[in-house]
């Protein structure tokens, strides 16, 4: 951004930065910037370890990075936290065998309702259902 400032009674308009000679070398200058128009306002908006100025304040990032990981579905949920940055691919495995015909009727796995029915046999006029145990 830029500011309208007055130094020693002289007005200067639209001043984005100020250069002042360095003590160590008067031919060199240190440059100071007006950062009032920046909108970064919390470490949680920047990756962990990085720093930046915004509106006169120095911020240090606090968002952790999550490296690549592969998730194999299991009997409990696996959650990727909302407060991280995915720096590597997060891969959720699938399985082509997850189809209705491979799941017992009445059972649902990951939303796939099973259609597999157990075979029946008749012996001596009595029908029996085979069970899996």
């Amino acid at each position, binding site marked *: *951004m830029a*500011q*309208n*400032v*007055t*130094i020693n009674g002289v*007005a200067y*308009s639209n*001043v984005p*930065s*100020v250069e*002042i*000679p*360095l*003590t*160590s070398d*008067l031919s060199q200058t*240190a*440059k*100071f*910037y*007006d*950062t*009032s*128009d*920046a*909108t*970064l306002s919390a470490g*949680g*908006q*920047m*990756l962990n*370890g*990085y*720093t*930046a*100025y*915004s509106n*006169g304040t*120095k*911020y240090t*990032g606090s*968002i952790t990075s999550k490296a690549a990981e592969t998730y194999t579905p299991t009997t409990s949920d696996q959650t*990727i*936290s*909302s407060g*991280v*940055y*995915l*720096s*590597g*691919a*997060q*891969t*959720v*495995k*699938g*399985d*082509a065998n*997850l189809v209705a015909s491979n799941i017992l009727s009445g059972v649902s796995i990951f939303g796939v309702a099973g259609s597999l029915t157990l075979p029946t046999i008749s012996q001596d006029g009595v029908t029996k259902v085979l069970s899996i145990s």
Partner: protein
Amino acid sequence: MAQNIELLGATYNDVPAVDLPKSGGGTARFMDVTDTTAAASNVASGYYFYTSSGVKTQGSASLATATVSGTVLTLTNGFPVSV
């Protein structure tokens, strides 16, 4: 960071910022930003900051991209939810 500067013959050490009177009243603060490390890809999309070279920059780190290949779901670089 802070700088050692000379102003009107006087030396000032470890100066992190310079406050100047605004023409309309109040004070404008000018910062030494040389010690920072962030680049656009390190800051969440939509937020502005100043780099170590004094350039106003917009963050570009955005939501992760989801792709499905066959039976495999993959999330790649980005945030799982908005920051």
